């Protein structure tokens, strides 16, 4: 098993959003920012 313990959606994704350090604390905003980042990675 690899290091990526966040592969499930939504549980792994939400856990990652919670654990990532961001300038904001609001869980909804953190998930939104992770979604935005995922979109950038997917489309670039």
């Amino acid at each position, binding site marked *: 098993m*690899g*290091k990526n313990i966040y*592969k499930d959606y*939504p549980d792994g994704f939400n856990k*990652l959003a919670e654990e990532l350090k*961001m300038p904001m604390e609001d869980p909804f905003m953190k998930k939104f920012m992770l979604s935005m980042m995922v*979109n950038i*990675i*997917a489309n*670039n």
Partner: protein
Amino acid sequence: MTAHEQVLYRSKLFRDAIAFRVPDRTPHFNCAVTWKIIDAGYKYSEAFNDYAIMEKVVRRFCDIYKFDLLMDNGARNPFKVMESFGKGYYYYDDESCVVGVEPYQLCPSEDLVEYAKDPTKYLWEKTLPARFPDWDDKGLEDFQRTMDEYFAYNGFSMKMMNIMKEEYGIPFANSPQTGFPSFAIETMFSGIRGIKGLSLDIRRHPDELKEAVDILDQKGIYMTINKVAGLEEGVDTETCYDISSIMLAHTILSPKTFERYYYEPLDKLIKTVASKKKQYRITVEGAAKHLHDYFRDYPQGTLAMLLEQDDIFECRKSLPNVCLIGGMETTMLNDASVQECLDWSKKLIDELTPGFIFAENKFVSYKNDANPENFKAVCDFVASYMNKK
């Protein structure tokens, strides 16, 4: 004028032009993109990987070339975000001075509806694991590194927007209330399916494509339409446009398929913008002459179109209700004499005003897109040529 007064003045130039009032002078929407980097003597690799260098590049451009709105403030390409995670589709080459993108698609045709129902879930569970061979080994530190780069990129973008507005008196392009929405068929074209995939889907999977487009538009463009409908009447006087979008997918659509996948939400958005007495800019890449019939009946003062390949004088006859943006061909900017460029600029302004915004006809990207001497002369001319009508 203070920077704030310049913002208001420049915004009014655009607003007057779109409304077919004769502005003090014709506004210049400058479409310089990566050309700025080469003109400043830097390599792409230097500017894309160092925000301090990119800031210098943009500041130098603002100091030398006069304009009223700039297409790109240096934050167009998030290379650093992508490179912090893995290999990207976009690439650049310092030797040949090329920036490009490899063809890609986010999902196969059979997954279109699944993707549309929950794009983030699909990207997370299918697209990213298939694309990155080391996905299973990505740990918190990998995601954190990319998130840090993403915030740095956003911070740079905001910094540049504020520098433009507060130091150079250049307004924001779009009202923050409405911004830059995307139609589902455009995201299908640009990434979800890509040009080839979308072309095949239109022929082989039209119903699945329609279902996916409708699902995505309900979550995207119809939300924007509802937002616009809820706003007060009138334009945002500190920005050049209330709302903007890019049209590129139309280049592979016939009138029939344009109606099926694009027209309904586009028509609703334009009518809603018109009912709120706001103004909408569409960047029309490629040519759109075959679709002009769809744009002819909207009230004058609502729509502005940035033209890439369509002849601007023919468009004036074909679309007398639409403010036209463009006219300055990059081939001329590079190959013609200064005087020829100035004569052409004067002709554009004299013959197309009212209802005209001066701009380069494509993103000025590569070294051969503009001769610096010509570009500066044209910028100086447009900034000083007062309308006499």
